[in-house]
């Protein structure tokens, strides 16, 4: 069966050009870049060159400001814990209620360690409440961490504005953004519109590089201690032998993403918009999460009232279609996604969310296929649902009021 892969916010296919670029460092050029003998110069040079490429593509950042890590989670942990240990005099952090767990759970952990953390709420469209944000800024605020775009809904936060407001309030507040979903997709100009951003995290496997490689941008002069100790690599800011092959792969993948951006982005957007409008037209009681906010052009998050997402995913999977869900049964916890809960999605829909996330490798024919099978899957589960009137294809009268209830009983 042909696989239709529409889960690119989870991970992406490694681009063939990337594999080609990194292969030599898994075979002939395996030497440790820290070694002194001649052959080790090749991997060392490769890292230098990759660092230059990444720095250039993020808006002409300075190469030493780019730190290679193992993943975005490590970058995020380094950003937060590194900032806390370097600035012990301030004990207040501001973030949002919809961050990826690599920030959200860190925030919850910090609260247990006695650091004050404010999680700024979002509205029904997943957009941050700016007034709440401003009110949260304090004279002892150490750090602000706001993701650039949300992994589940694709909603884009105004990082340019929020970082400006932060810096105009207090120059010494450190501004971090988790740009894992946006690097290669949205323009990031660290000398321009992102000039107030001090720290920026991202990873390779969201942009067609392999898993196991990430990066952290640390603006020159930002007080941030290393997270991994025990070596002089990365100017002593991240110990551990460099993952040469994947560093090369990351730079290559970013280069391709930037090169092809103007060509790929309109195509992906057109496919997403068609998928969205067709599903909305064909399926009653279907919500598009975050529809009134600016969103990543590759992400579609829909919620089907009165059914559970896992049964949808299972049937999609049986058709070879890979997507994901924020439902409780797919999360490993028994709660539905904290992002959808923060948006106060009614609980008749919160368990029935499905996320399609596209890449340049998707085709119009694949979109056709999803449009063809998805309504039938929703229908098959609604026929089983005790809240659904299958005869009239609408919720049962007694379930109607649940369409607007958002608080857990």
């Amino acid at each position, binding site marked *: 069966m042909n696989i239709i892969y529409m889960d690119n916010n989870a991970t992406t296919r490694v681009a063939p050009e990337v594999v080609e670029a990194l292969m030599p460092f898994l075979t002939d050029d395996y030497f440790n870049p820290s070694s002194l003998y001649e052959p080790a110069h090749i991997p060392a040079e490769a890292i230098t060159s990759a660092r230059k490429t990444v720095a250039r593509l993020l808006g002409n950042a300075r190469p030493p400001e780019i730190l290679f890590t193992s993943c975005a989670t490590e970058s995020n942990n380094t950003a937060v814990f590194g900032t806390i240990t370097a600035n012990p005099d*301030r004990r207040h952090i501001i973030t949002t209620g919809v961050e990826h767990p690599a920030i959200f759970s860190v925030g919850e952990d910090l609260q247990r360690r006695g650091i004050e953390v404010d999680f700024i709420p979002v509205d029904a469209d997943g957009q941050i409440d700016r007034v709440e944000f401003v009110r949260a800024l304090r004279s*002892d605020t150490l750090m602000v961490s706001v993701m650039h775009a949300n992994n589940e809904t694709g909603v884009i936060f105004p990082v340019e504005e929020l970082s400006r407001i932060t810096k105009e*309030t207090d120059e010494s507040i450190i501004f971090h953004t988790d740009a894992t979903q946006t690097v290669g997709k949205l323009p990031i100009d660290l000398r321009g519109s992102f000039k107030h951003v001090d720290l920026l995290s991202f990873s390779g496997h969201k942009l067609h590089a392999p898993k196991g490689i990430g990066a952290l941008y640390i603006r020159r002069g930002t007080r941030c201690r290393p997270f991994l100790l025990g070596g002089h690599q990365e100017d002593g800011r991240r110990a551990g032998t460099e993952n040469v092959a994947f560093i090369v792969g990351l730079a290559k993948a970013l280069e391709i993403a930037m090169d092809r951006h103007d060509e790929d982005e309109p195509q992906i957007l057109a496919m997403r918009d068609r998928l969205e409008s067709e599903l909305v037209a064909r399926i009653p009681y279907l919500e598009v999460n975050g529809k009134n906010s600016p969103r990543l052009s590759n992400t579609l998050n829909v919620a089907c009232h*009165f*059914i559970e*997402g896992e049964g949808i995913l299972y049937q999609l999977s049986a058709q070879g279609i890979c997507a994901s869900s924020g439902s409780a*049964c797919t999360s490993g916890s*028994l709660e539905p996604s904290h992002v959808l809960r923060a948006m106060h999605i009614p609980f008749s829909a919160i*368990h029935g969310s499905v996320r399609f996330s596209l890449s340049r490798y998707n085709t119009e024919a694949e979109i056709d296929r999803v449009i063809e099978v998805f309504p039938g899957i929703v229908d098959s589960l609604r026929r089983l649902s005790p809240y659904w009137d299958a005869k009239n294809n609408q919720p049962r009268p007694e379930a109607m009021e649940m369409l607007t209830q958002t608080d857990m009983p």
Partner: protein
Amino acid sequence: MTWNYSKKTTELFMAAVSGQPGTHLGEIEDADGFGEHGSLACGDALRFTFRVDRHPSDPRQDRITEARYLTFGCTSAIAASEALCAIIEEGDFTPIGALQITNQDIVKYLDGLPQAKIHCSVMGAEALEAAVFNWAQKRGVDLAELGIDIRHDEQEEGRLVCTCFGLTEPYILRKIEELNLTSIPEITNAIKAGGACMSCHHTPGGLQDMLDQVNGARATSLKQLPVLPMARAPRAQPPAEMSPFKFAKRVEEVIETYVRPQLAKDAGDIEIIDIKDSKVYCTMKGACANCMGSQSTIKMLVEQALKDQIDQRIQVIEV
């Protein structure tokens, strides 16, 4: 987390969603037994109904002839509902006899369930029990007289322990005993209690205390961590010797008398969001809201007016 369902589970699920003959989707009208478990908010819910062949003189000898379900839930919840109906129809049970069916029978019928999905089988057994109690009421059978414990009130009456899933102390205690649960993860897997916010795990009277109550206490080193007092830097002084209240009043006054009339000329307006020390946070309204020049308007007009009228240290930030 990939799917690790048994073949039987996925077969039953796919048969149910494709509406194959022999599956038990539906709801019996005027059913002899009607039972529900779970809720929409909790993420799974089962409505179970059955019909009996009524015995002419002794309702206790009624035979269940047909069982149906409607389920909102994941793959395994739907498969477990199918399994429950199949077990009942294959077994030729009396309603009282059907009470012998446990969640373990459902798990066995499905050739096993992943640990985290055990609660799907428990949901089946609970809905069956509720339906049998409903049948007994309709048929005038006194289950208590037969030595069967009717506890359909315990959900309403006990102390609420797991607020996320609305589960009470007597219910959880009974389930710990019935299902031989020995740890908090086991409780969560079986009946979901403690699976969401987790705040009931180690609080007094929480899940661990209830486990200890049933199974005997054990040594535990888990303690709540103390919340450290935070080191808060003293706030900077507000500008001049004005109190923050007077300062805010003055800012409003200046905005009202000098700024608003100016903005109104272009059909614009301004709102003060917050004032922190000498920083005034504003947002532009009306025609100004979408104006490309709003940032410079703020600096030139608003900030300058406030500086001239109140204090040179004032800084205006557009939100």
